[in-house]
């Protein structure tokens, strides 16, 4: 490599680093200014002492966990059977798992609200609809993570070994296959977690308590607390991604962003 190239590379890199970190640094510094004249963690103690924050945030965590559970129950058996038994459905399933990219979240929630707010499908107020919606939003990531995991193990041999030892389908799936793809499932789960925690549109239009709508509201009437929330949210995203690259083989998976 020539010297000029290297200088140029450093230059680009430094601009990238500034672009990445400046907004975060600004937010962090701002979040420390809640007490006049001194830097303090007052904004953080404020938000964690605020029952509305704690309850909205806990709801988001609950939605995320439910989404992950529903996702695992729905996608692991499907991906397993597609791989082993009914490959003729592969194209259809892959097409469906890409659909959430084609239908933007706002259009998706538009459809959900209009479909489920009239009889016979009057479940627009049920939390189940929110979890179903989140499962759809996380589907491209979760399904693909599971499918990638299955590709890396010898599904057929494991299944046949289980069968010759007398295992039923349930125990093949949950005692043999699931533990063998736990790394892939974990990375899908943490990505889903990050998406659900930061998601605004579904929670807002289905009128359910969640972190992002609460934060959007407090941007309008508070100064320092939203900064602290943004930092908490960023730390969570970071933790989720960090765990994914720790358990996985290091961020090779292309991710098409979540709730923009």
């Amino acid at each position, binding site marked *: 490599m020539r010297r000029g190239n290297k200088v*140029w590379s450093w230059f680009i890199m430094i601009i990238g680093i500034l672009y990445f970190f*400046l907004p*975060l640094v600004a937010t962090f510094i701002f979040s420390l200014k809640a007490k006049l004249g001194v830097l303090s963690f007052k904004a953080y103690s404020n938000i964690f002492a605020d029952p509305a924050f704690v309850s909205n945030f806990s709801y988001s965590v609950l939605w995320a966990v439910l989404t992950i559970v529903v996702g695992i129950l729905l996608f692991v058996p499907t991906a397993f059977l597609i791989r082993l038994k*009914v490959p003729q459905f592969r194209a259809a399933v892959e097409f469906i798992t890409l659909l959430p990219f084609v*239908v933007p979240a706002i*259009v998706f929630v538009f459809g959900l609200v209009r479909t489920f707010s009239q009889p016979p499908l009057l479940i627009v107020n049920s939390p189940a609809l929110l979890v179903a919606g989140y499962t*759809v939003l996380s589907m491209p990531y979760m399904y693909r993570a599971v499918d990638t995991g299955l590709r890396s193990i010898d599904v057929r041999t494991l299944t046949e070994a289980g069968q010759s030892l007398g295992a039923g389908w349930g125990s093949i799936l949950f005692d043999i296959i699931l533990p063998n793809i736990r790394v892939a499932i974990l990375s899908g789960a943490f990505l889903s977690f990050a998406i659900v925690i*930061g998601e605004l549109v579904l929670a807002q239009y289905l009128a359910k308590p969640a972190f992002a709508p609460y934060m959007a509201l407090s941007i309008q009437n508070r100064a320092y607390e939203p900064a602290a929330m943004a930092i908490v949210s960023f730390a969570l995203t970071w933790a989720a991604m960090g765990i994914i690259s720790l358990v996985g083989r290091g961020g090779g998976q292309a991710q*098409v962003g979540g709730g923009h």
Partner: protein
Amino acid sequence: MTAFDEKRDAPKARPARHKMSWAWLGVMPFFIFAFLFLIYPSSTIGVRSFIDSKTHAFTFKNILALFSNQYILRAYWISIQISLITSLGGGIFGFLLAYSAIRGGLPKFMRSSLMTFCGVASNFAGVPLAFAFIALLSPTGMLIGWLRALGYNPYFHGFTLYTFFGLSIVYMYFQFPLMVLIIAPAIDGLRREWLEASENLGASSFQYWRFVAFPILLPSIMGTMILLFGNSFGAYATAQALTGGQINLVTIVIGSQLSGDVLGDAGLGYALALGMVVVMAVAIAGYTLLQRRTERWLR
């Protein structure tokens, strides 16, 4: 991978033929779920775009109105502009960044940290992202404060965070990381032999790029930029949180149509959403096609 290999299986281990029906049933929960919560609700929008909201008769009126309603045309135009700018800008900058980290002679750890950062940043969007830029670039923001201390206030020179230009800067935050993540494998696929071969044949650095690297990377770059276009076109939460719904993107108009029929015509609202899905579908299809073209070289 077709059906079971008859010869190698132990007879007892092989499920009997009639169990195929069971396997077929096993994927049904997925299809039922997808139909109920994704395909049916989304296709409702398509169907209702062609229904007159008052007479409930079939009509093209709503679709045609998209092209004559000034408010809607302007919303599409702003969405398209912001998506073009941020996909081009994010695409070019993301490519340069990925290339610098992978082939720029930087220390090895830069590459893996860049990938992790990009994984985080491409998922760090919506409300927290909007606030991060408020803290940096609002009239009381950190960077604006620094510039003011130097005697230059961008807000006196036409800059605002809350309109088109400001929103573009914010969108770039999730656009260029996505470019880095997707383009990195393509850059990895550029073999060193190709550079060496062209140097041995006396090619200049410019000629290497013009005749070797660029033509190979072009489908991939184009495809990813199209994906970035869709990524920005469908974005809602960031713009909503940043501007409080003051900027008329298509997604924002759909949002306000959903909460209070601002267009005064339900059918028109569906048509608006349908138009959005069409743009997204074209973008994703373009990405998929171009990505497939790239794979020819990169294996």
